[in-house]
């Protein structure tokens, strides 16, 4: 035992040695029937549950939307491909070249509607403050849903703003703390939108003499002939978000906003054209709550315009594609069991002594195990997740669910991210197994660290929102954020809670937290593996 060889043996593990280690670990993995079955079951469960949800899910508005059945509703998409709601009342004239539009807003009030009369109007209206009601000037490529646009507006509670192409938002006057930004005849607000080619600049002013530029935006490919005019819209109150489709709701009360504009001037309008009122909306199938009072009156130089809806990203009406990956949670159980056992079985069978005799540099043996396990899980997860999402989306659509559009990049992030998350968590379970050297203990620790936090914050929200956010920031469950499809938008009022599918961390930040846990566990495992006798 104490023989000392003067020169290092030729079989010293180098790069080739590590390849041998990988091969050995791969052989161990693929020859244990239970682990192969676990990985196959994980893949299959992800796929089958995706198909099941795709064909069995029925969003509530599909059967009883506020405006009747909404089964064939297709969510409009904006210029960036994101889901949008594009509903407002528009008093407009064609703008055929460069020009500008200016107006003064002297009032903006909102009412909430309840009940319906036999004529289809609201039975009762009640004054209410809608912080994101909007009244102002807009230049839009057309009245089609999801058209490119730029607008300046006063809002019910967020001051003057310039918004463009649904997701863009810049504050103007009245953004200071405590300033509600409400307009009145005593303190009106002047707005101006000027257009040069496809560049649009928004201004606001308190007195109409000194103008402040809010922002300049480029709407690529804007046609020479556009529509410019006044718009008013007001989102439903008490909106609920619905990334998780069971909570999809059309229960928000519709609101109407009414604004008064005067001193309206349009430069560059087509000569001889007159103001036209158009109700821009997504049709009767839209689940978005809209009021019934839309219209406009023109008296002297003043316009009184009433509108309902929103020009904004849609966070309420659709089904995000990540619901198709619900099987991940079942798959994770199988993966965590296999991952923990990949390590603890060696201790139970005594194989670890052979493994460590063959690879005396113990950290390398652990690394080889982690790489093999991670790669196998990633490949299996990728197959399952890709099939579930790609086959599930047409099924979801065919069963009448409005599916949120997702860019190819988002789809790749959700699918590959889910597979990567499964791989990282499998490695975490492996490392916990190496630390505890006890199969049941390692599996319990891994499942309670990964699945239980998600269960208590999102699925059965027993924890209050503040605590839930905190839990999803620091536990290994933070990585589940990689599945979030629709981001939270500050300019859309909604309850962005974990139970509505919104994670407190950005997708990659959440994933990084999980990776940090896995790295920490691996480091501890390597340390223990070196220090302890096997």
């Amino acid at each position, binding site marked *: 035992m104490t023989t000392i060889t003067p020169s290092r043996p030729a079989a010293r593990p180098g790069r080739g040695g590590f390849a041998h280690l990988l091969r050995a670990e791969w052989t161990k993995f693929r020859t244990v029937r239970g682990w192969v079955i676990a990985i196959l079951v994980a893949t299959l469960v992800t796929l089958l549950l995706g198909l099941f949800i795709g064909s069995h*899910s*029925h969003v509530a508005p599909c059967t009883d939307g506020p405006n009747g059945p909404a089964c064939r509703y297709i969510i409009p998409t904006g210029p960036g491909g994101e889901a949008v709601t594009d509903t407002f009342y528009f008093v407009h004239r064609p703008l055929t070249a460069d020009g500008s539009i200016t107006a003064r807003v002297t009032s903006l009030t909102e009412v909430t509607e309840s009940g319906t009369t036999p004529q289809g109007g609201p039975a009762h209206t009640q004054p209410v403050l809608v912080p994101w009601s909007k009244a102002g000037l807009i230049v839009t490529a057309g009245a089609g849903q999801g058209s490119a646009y730029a607008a300046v507006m006063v809002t019910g509670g967020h001051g003057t703003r310039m918004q463009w192409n649904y997701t863009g938002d810049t504050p103007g006057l009245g953004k200071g703390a405590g300033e509600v930004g409400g307009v009145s005849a005593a303190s009106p607000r002047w707005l101006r939108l000027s257009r040069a080619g496809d560049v649009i600049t928004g201004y606001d002013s308190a007195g109409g003499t000194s103008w402040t530029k809010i922002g300049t935006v480029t709407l690529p490919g804007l046609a020479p002939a556009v529509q410019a005019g006044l718009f008013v819209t007001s989102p439903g109150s008490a909106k609920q978000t619905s990334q998780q489709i069971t909570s999809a709701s059309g229960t928000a009360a519709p609101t109407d906003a009414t604004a008064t504009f005067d001193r309206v001037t349009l430069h560059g309008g087509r000569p001889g054209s007159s103001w036209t009122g158009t109700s821009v909306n997504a049709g009767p199938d839209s689940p978005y709550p809209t009021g019934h009072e839309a219209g406009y009156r023109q008296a002297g130089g003043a316009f009184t315009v009433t509108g309902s809806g929103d020009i904004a990203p849609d966070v309420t009406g659709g089904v995000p594609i990540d619901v198709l990956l619900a099987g991940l949670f079942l798959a994770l159980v199988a993966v965590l*069991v296999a991952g923990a056992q990949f390590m603890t079985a060696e201790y139970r069978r005594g194989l670890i002594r052979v493994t460590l005799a063959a690879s005396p540099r113990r950290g390398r043996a652990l690394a080889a195990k982690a790489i093999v396990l991670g790669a196998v899980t990633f490949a299996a997860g990728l197959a399952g997740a890709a099939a579930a999402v790609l086959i599930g989306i047409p099924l979801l659509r065919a069963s009448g669910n409005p599916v949120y559009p997702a860019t190819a990049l988002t789809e790749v992030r959700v699918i590959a991210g889910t597979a990567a998350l499964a791989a990282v968590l499998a490695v975490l379970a492996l490392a916990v197994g190496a630390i505890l050297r006890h199969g*049941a203990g390692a599996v319990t620790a891994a499942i*309670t660290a990964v699945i239980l936090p998600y269960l208590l914050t999102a699925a059965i929200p027993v924890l209050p929102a503040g605590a839930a956010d905190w839990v999803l920031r620091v536990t290994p469950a933070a990585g589940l954020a990689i599945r979030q499809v629709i981001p939270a938008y500050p300019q859309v009022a909604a309850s962005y809670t974990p139970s509505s599918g919104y994670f407190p961390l950005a997708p990659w930040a959440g994933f990084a937290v999980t990776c940090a846990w896995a790295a920490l566990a691996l480091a501890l495992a390597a340390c223990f593996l070196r220090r302890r006798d096997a």
Partner: protein
Amino acid sequence: MRESLHAEWTKLRTLASTFWLLLAAAALTAMVSAAAAAAVRCPAGGCADDPAKISLTGIYLGQAVVAVVAVMAVSGEYGTGMIRLTLAATPRRLTVLAAKAAVLAGLVLVTGAIAVFASLLAGGLILPGHGIGPSHGYPAISASDGAVLRAAFGSVLYLALIALLSLGAATALREAAAAIGAVLGLLYVLPIIAVFTGNATLSRHLEQIAPMTAGLAIQATTGLNTLPISPWAGLGVLAAWAAGALVLGGILLRSRDA
């Protein structure tokens, strides 16, 4: 049967891990419950909170540790080969399983009673300071309230039934890691799947038959009409799961070589 009970009691009692795991189950339950109570804020009152249910949040975590104790009571014997000695000493295998179930249920009932008492005590002390107490119109957490008593006794029974479910699963699967994975998957994952089905009817049915969501209906003291299943019926569903697991485990125990 008496010898069997004595044997199982001696085996469980003399295993150091049993004591520490049960202590951990009680401590974790009480700690998570207290943390949940401390995290709830309702200064203005009028929140739809159920004081007893919040005070018993720790059961969600405590049940996992209880499940480990139950699984190890069987799988530990398979891991060490002890099971062959046990079955040689008591050839009537169902007697072994029944004795294990009885001893385990007794231990978990005691542990659960301590955990539930500590949790409710913590909730009763913390919650009123956070706007969820009798001064804001909420029912006090007291032993004279029938609904609170139901939640308390029900939660203790819940833990015992989880132990029996885990025992049955471990007897059927033998492998500790696989058994605990199956039990925790059944408990934790079914409610998540229910949320994602996107089909209200299907989701409600899943919540009615899933052992955790059905069983924990017993914790509700307010808003009983919004529950997927009534409290005692829910605990009955969990009891059916536990009985099913024990029967399956018993059949497999009798029919397989150890």
